[in-house]
């Protein structure tokens, strides 16, 4: 996928967008980010649900192991929301690497990201962004499909 100066340089991805994009056959859209950091706990979680996902991705995804425990404030937030280990690592790595945005679908994780000052977007945003960046065509449901709804 073509890179350009307007592209987002580095994002951190939680399990939700990875799994949902793969389910939709649109995992390639992550290739539009110059670097996608996947926390170690997220990587393990995704492998449990989609064992062959990482085997089908190109070099875009980078597995990251946190080098230290989360800050006390993040640990407290993780207990309060509550957040899973992968979500906590995603927040920690996004802060440490100044990645922007964090890609997550879980409501609690997104709320925690907002509270820590991180911008956060989910699968829906990634799909719509792909249309804006002309990587996908918008599709209007045909009358036949519409009548089924």
């Amino acid at each position, binding site marked *: 996928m073509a890179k350009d100066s307007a592209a987002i340089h580095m994002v951190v991805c939680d399990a939700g967008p990875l799994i949902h994009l793969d389910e939709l056959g649109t995992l390639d859209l992550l290739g539009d980010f110059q670097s996608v950091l996947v926390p170690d706990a997220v990587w393990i979680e995704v492998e449990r649900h989609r064992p062959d996902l990482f085997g089908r991705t190109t070099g875009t995804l980078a597995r990251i192991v946190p080098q230290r425990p989360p800050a006390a404030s993040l640990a407290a937030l993780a207990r309060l929301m509550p957040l899973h280990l992968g979500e906590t690592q995603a927040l920690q790595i996004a802060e440490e690497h100044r990645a922007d945005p964090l890609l997550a679908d879980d*409501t609690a994780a*997104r*709320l925690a990201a907002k509270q820590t000052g991180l911008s956060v977007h989910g*699968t829906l945003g990634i799909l719509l*962004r792909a249309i*804006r960046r002309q990587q996908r065509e918008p599709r209007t449901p045909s009358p036949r499909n519409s009548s089924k709804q």
Partner: protein
Amino acid sequence: MTTPIHADIPDQLVQQPAILIRDGWATDLDEILTDALRRYLTSHSAELSEAFIRGDMEWGLRGEG
């Protein structure tokens, strides 16, 4: 009005509230469980989900980068 519930909770998880109750931070386990459930529902509310969907639409359609 209240509804009684039965829940299987790990022993270690029950021990921690017991310390809070002993130290006066909560009246009893009922109060702690009610507060925990309320907090969970707040952080997973439909209104919050809708706000995030709108945020995704704005970023996806009109964002930068």
